[in-house]
């Protein structure tokens, strides 16, 4: 039942996302889409993926979309909506996929190649060799630790890219004639009942936000503690550096959403955050290099200490922390840089 319904919901949301003209609604539907897909992950027992999806899909990317929306405009303009070439390409791709899935093995079949060839080795040896109860964490951090280094670098790259693009960007078309004025043909969308007011009345702020602020203040330490817990707990259950890092990052974002951007910057300055982005990856890469000096291959943790299993646990913990630092810092960067644009422009 649940296995049939959730994917169906997914399809409904996926199509609705594209059909809705109001961008904010679209983003909201997309956030529900993320929630649905997370349920699907849980249902498929992919707990680590689920926790990541929760943090990223429903959380960070929704916030990012909203920020960007606040910088642009929120209504998609009405167009003739069917594009024939796009349709052809899409149908072509669907055709190829259908053609290819004819002789794919049945799902959930325990005898398919992925379940019989490489992964049984991980399941058998993960605990013995790396000391990780969570096989996902063992693969992520050790067997395919190099991929994860790459993944962390991707995140750091995104942060650097944002900084490169946004910080102190000078040339703007100042006397730009907004296209909005001349464009006609705006769709009348039912959904847009609300016109965002650009400034809120200053006096009332305190009273209005009191619940939000109190709750957040109360929650903040828990969120951060929980983030740390997720980072460290990766060894035993779902979670790890990446998920924990996102949670830590989210805590600052929540803080900023509630207490204001300036306030948040006092808690976590831009400079410190820049430094953290780099240092996380450095910790990760550094542990790898350290292994070289102990005579192992790159990222071979078990040479670091006399007891290979313990060494492995320590090594993996180290890199999880590295990942956590970088990811947290990058999440904050994404938020800060996109929010800050006008401050510099």
């Amino acid at each position: 039942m649940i296995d049939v319904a959730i994917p169906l919901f997914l399809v409904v949301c996926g199509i609705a996302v594209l059909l809705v003209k109001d961008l904010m609604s679209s983003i909201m539907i997309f956030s529900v889409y993320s929630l649905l897909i997370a349920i699907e992950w849980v249902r498929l027992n992919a707990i680590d993926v689920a926790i990541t999806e929760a943090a990223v899909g429903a959380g960070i990317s929704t916030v990012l979309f909203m920020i960007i929306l606040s910088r642009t405009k929120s209504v998609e303009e009405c167009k003739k909506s069917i594009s024939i070439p796009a349709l052809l390409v899409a149908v072509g791709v669907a055709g190829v996929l259908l053609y290819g899935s004819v002789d794919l093995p049945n799902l959930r079949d325990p005898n398919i190649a992925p379940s019989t060839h490489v992964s049984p080795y991980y399941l058998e040896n993960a605990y013995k060799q790396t000391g990780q109860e969570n096989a996902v964490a063992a693969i992520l951090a050790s067997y395919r630790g190099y991929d994860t280094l790459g993944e962390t670098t991707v995140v750091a790259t995104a942060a650097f890219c944002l900084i490169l693009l946004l910080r102190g960007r000078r040339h703007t078309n100042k006397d730009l004639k907004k296209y909005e004025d001349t464009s006609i043909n705006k769709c009348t969308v039912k959904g847009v009942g609300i016109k965002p007011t650009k400034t809120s009345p200053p006096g009332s702020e305190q009273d209005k936000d009191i619940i939000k602020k109190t709750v957040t203040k109360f929650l903040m330490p828990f969120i951060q503690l929980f983030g740390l817990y997720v980072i460290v707990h990766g060894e035993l259950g779902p979670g790890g550096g990446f998920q924990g890092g996102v949670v830590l990052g989210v805590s600052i974002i929540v803080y900023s959403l509630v207490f204001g951007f300036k306030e948040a910057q006092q808690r976590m300055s831009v400079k410190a955050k820049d430094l953290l982005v780099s240092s996380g990856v450095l910790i990760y890469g550094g542990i790898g290099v350290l292994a070289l000096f102990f005579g192992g291959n790159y990222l071979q943790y078990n040479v670091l200490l006399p007891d290979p299993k313990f060494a492995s646990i320590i090594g993996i913990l180290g890199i999880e922390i590295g990942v956590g630092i970088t990811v947290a810092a990058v999440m904050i960067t994404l938020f800060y840089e996109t929010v800050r644009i006008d401050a510099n422009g």
Partner: protein
Amino acid sequence: MVELLAKYNYWIVIILLTTGLYGVMARQNLIKKIIALNVFQTAVLLFYVSMSKIEGGTAPVLIKGAKQIIYDNPLPQVLMLTAIVVGISTTAVALTFVTLIYREYGTIEEDQILELNKHND
């Protein structure tokens, strides 16, 4: 019913992937394109994670002391963790482009941008 379900997720993957791809190419709005791109990417995630599930399997976290437990395949999950991270990074960079484009052009509709480019050149 069972046989339909055996490949059910494949069909869902195909529908989502096609929807996303169509959206990316057909929509004019730059933000909408990115959302569609995300839908497109999640379809692939679903494909991978679907293949990690084994009938009667449990999450790939060791249950100490128990024997004869079927665990799900952890490897696709690991791969998809990476893919999700890559996805969010791409989305972030793409959204940055959108804001910058809006600042330079005053619009985020592709056809209007093309028109502005034509006037400028």
